[in-house]
């Protein structure tokens, strides 16, 4: 039950885009068509689902104060948490490299479509943000952390696919010239965020 609760919460209530604005850069840049949106969204789910649990282990067995106690009593006082940024980003960068190679080998068409944005997942704030929120919220076990990572990824996926679909349609409408492109996308995202806020307070 706790798992379902975290999953739903991370998709709808703590949505990466609408509540925390994480990963906005690629969200705005790759959402011109639904196809590329789906590709990038899937890549984000995958990378978040892998990196959050790995970073959870790293946090709890290496970085946190007293986490090194499994090495022996004399390590009980060691606090390496100031290193967490650099460790998390290293894990993320190497995982992204792996995903990139896998996509290049098994789905070359998708690789061509995603172009520069696949390596840029490494600097997609939602990925590092997922790990940092995991650290801040202190999940009880690795299962919860994994579910949180996957849920955040699914939330991001939903958001980018929805905005891509809207942008495909909006091409046929008369938007005021200075608002075209970036401006209207911001405003639509704001309105979608308001819609997502109605999920607030849902508890399973």
């Amino acid at each position, binding site marked *: 039950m706790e798992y379902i609760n975290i999953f739903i919460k991370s998709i709808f209530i703590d949505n990466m885009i609408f509540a925390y604005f994480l990963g906005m850069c690629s969200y705005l840049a790759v959402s011109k068509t639904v196809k590329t949106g789906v590709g990038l969204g899937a890549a984000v789910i995958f990378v978040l689902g892998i990196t959050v649990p790995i970073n959870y282990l790293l946090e709890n067995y290496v970085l946190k104060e007293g986490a090194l106690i499994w090495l022996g009593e004399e390590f009980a006082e060691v606090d390496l948490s100031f290193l967490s940024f*650099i460790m998390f980003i290293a894990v993320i960068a190497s995982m992204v490299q792996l995903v990139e190679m896998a996509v290049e080998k098994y789905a070359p068409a998708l690789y061509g479509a995603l172009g520069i944005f696949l390596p840029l997942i490494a600097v997609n704030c939602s990925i590092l943000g997922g790990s940092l929120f995991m650290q801040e919220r202190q999940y009880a076990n690795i299962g919860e952390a994994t579910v949180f990572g996957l849920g955040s990824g699914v939330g991001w996926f939903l958001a980018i696919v929805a905005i891509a679909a809207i942008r495909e349609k909006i091409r046929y409408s008369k938007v005021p010239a*200075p608002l075209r492109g970036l401006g209207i996308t911001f405003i639509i995202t704001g309105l979608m965020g308001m819609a997502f806020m109605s999920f607030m307070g849902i508890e399973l």
Partner: protein
Amino acid sequence: MSETAEATAVVKEPREPLFSSKNKKLLSDPLNDDNPITIQVLGICSALAITVQVKQAVVMSLSVLVVMIGANLIVSLMRNLIPSRVRIIVQLVIVAALVILVDQVLKAYVYDVSKQLSVFVGLIITNCIIMGRLEAFALANKPWPSFLDAIGNAAGYGWILIAVAVVRELFGSGKFWGYQVIPDAVYDFGYFNNGLMILPPMALITVGIIIWIQRSKNTKLIEEN
């Protein structure tokens, strides 16, 4: 991008005065015509999330300024040493080291603000502005232009951040920098704070409106679609 052309010109004239017109352009362009947030679409995440109060926005802009100057200078000094295949990782490590420094300083001197910024200090590492400028500028230019480019872009980022924060704090809680500026008499008259302004969606809409204003003044920035 137009800067690349200017940049090569800068490199070819070693005896250029420190504030030549090209270098001045590096400083002034990002404020308007080539603004990192509204035109280059970089660094949106943090711009939206921490603009509820002016104080947070100012601290955030200063942190980004420091990290960016440091990163641009170091990468620009090392630009001939970094193999291009591993450049992303090298850049991430440089930026992450600088961010750790900034984070520790914030924790030591302005603990409450650092607590409010929560994960967003760490997220400066993946702030696309920094990576974007490193990739597009510092890797190909000398330290001095890179330094100016860092200041220009951080200032362009900062003014949007602060503008959004002023609007949101003023209308959302009637305050500026934590002090009440809308007098009580107005509230007695039936004025209400707009609670929606504090919530996340209004940040997006405020930036959308800033883009609208900017592009209607500067029509050459209008996009095709």
